[in-house]
């Protein structure tokens, strides 16, 4: 998966749940290789948007195109196959070690099936070894190499978040979706995470779409920002322009100087 990052174009996406419009004709574009932030009050529809992009929810209307392919209607695993990876707002890891979780991220890049694995065919053994090596590199990049062979269960919150991001990176994605990557971290840890995200972009050259309530982080990282409120897009532009937008202030930021 060496293909370069491509443009993600969200156009008029609408999602309705019984009696509730969670996304209402939302449109925005994530430029290739950029870090794009999606912000908005609680319940604005940010996670819903992620769910549509990753195929977990099916949009009621509108279109999502990535690299010229239509994504709406594709099942999640097909979307993953196109190089789109995500993390979850509430950490969702599977049982087992860090390595197990990261190797799960490499599912789509590997091919060993039931038969070859059960029989331990050399092909499968070789493949596993090669990809484990890469998973270790990624773990090291996120600073969790020391935990590589430990169970994820008792890891601290921050480390678990890092495992999630590492798992997403293990998919060698071209577009990375991060849902509140620094929630529950203190400022020092937040800074470190921001540096990691920036480094991912710098070294892998992929696009990143990020949902975050920490405006400091958004301002430091994002090239562009889209603001949602009640499922509608209320602003779109550079961080600075959005931060000054009165509607955004009224709906989301409140007294500006308070944002940590």
């Amino acid at each position, binding site marked *: 998966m060496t293909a370069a990052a491509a443009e993600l174009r969200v156009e008029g996406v609408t999602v309705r749940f019984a009696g509730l419009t969670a996304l209402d004709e939302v449109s925005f574009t994530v430029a290739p290789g950029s870090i794009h932030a999606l912000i908005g*009050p609680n319940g604005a529809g940010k996670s819903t948007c992620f769910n549509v992009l990753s195929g977990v929810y099916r949009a009621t209307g509108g279109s999502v195109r990535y690299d010229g392919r239509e994504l709406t209607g594709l099942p999640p695993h097909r979307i993953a196959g196109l190089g789109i990876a995500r993390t979850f*707002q*509430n950490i969702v890891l599977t049982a087992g070690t860090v390595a197990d979780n990261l190797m799960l991220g490499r599912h789509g890049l590997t091919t060993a099936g039931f038969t070859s694995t059960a029989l331990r065919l050399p092909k499968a053994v070789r493949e596993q070894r090669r990809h484990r090596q890469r998973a270790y590199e990624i773990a090291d990049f996120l600073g969790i190499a020391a935990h590589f062979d430990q169970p994820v269960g008792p890891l*601290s919150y921050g480390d678990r978040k890092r495992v999630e991001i590492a798992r997403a990176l293990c998919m*060698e994605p071209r577009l990375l979706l991060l849902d509140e990557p620094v929630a529950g*971290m203190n400022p020092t840890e937040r800074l470190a995470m921001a540096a990691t995200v920036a480094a991912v972009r710098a070294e892998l050259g992929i696009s990143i779409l990020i949902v975050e309530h920490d405006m400091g982080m958004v301002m430091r990282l994002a090239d562009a920002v889209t603001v949602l409120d009640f499922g509608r897009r209320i602003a779109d532009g550079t961080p600075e322009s959005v931060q000054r937008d009165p509607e955004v202030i009224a709906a*989301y930021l*409140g007294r500006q100087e308070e944002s*940590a």
Partner: protein
Amino acid sequence: MSPPTPPTGTLRIDRLQVTYSRAVQALRGVSLEVRAGEITAVLGSNGAGKSTLLRALSGTLALHRGVVDSGGVTLDGAPLTGDPARAVAAGMVQVPEGRRVFADLTVEENLRAGGLALGGRARRAAQERVFELLPVLAERRRQAAGLMSGGEQQMLALGRALMAGPKVLLLDEPSLGLAPMMVERIAGIVQRINAAGTTVLLVEQNAAVALRISHRASVLENGLVRLTGSAEELAGNDEVRRLYLGAGESGPEPAAAHPAKLGRWAG
């Protein structure tokens, strides 16, 4: 609200030691006083033992396979026995980490579950009060809690705890995942509740807000109390400023700050 009676709800934590699964020592002798009628903040990085401390108070340690090895906790002089139901009966309610709303129940039923001890009339009154504080909940009263957004669930968790009209409120990261404006809103609510006589123990990552609204604060590190004092004192402490308030944030360019390198996958 009733005229001011001398506030009760003093929590004394004395050399508390807690171990999980007979292996992980999460608290290693924590002593702390939470004064009646005050807001006390506890700061600390991930894994410092903040949630463990709250669990020890509310009596839910056992559900995480944790035990108190030694030390103890008293509420207004009476020892807490590690039974959640008794803690609630004594007027102490905890908002757990990570929202934990009853996913299958509606918003309204969640609130009812928060006020189980109340009679019908008192419960309706309490519910009106919560709706007034958190209007989103009124809008969504018939929605299943599990389908709400992260932030909405956080508000429900708080509202549910308020239903019982607690004497002592334990909050575990109430601002987690909340939008900036909502954080302010919750801070205001906590202050209002406190003003009405509720003692609050607040665990927070958002130290700026926490220190602003609380009277006293402590910093927990590796299962030990590292610093303790009035909120102003701590807010002025250099270490606290650096570690928890993000002072000097405008450091080097983020990407360069990252220690490790990662090449592209050659396939």
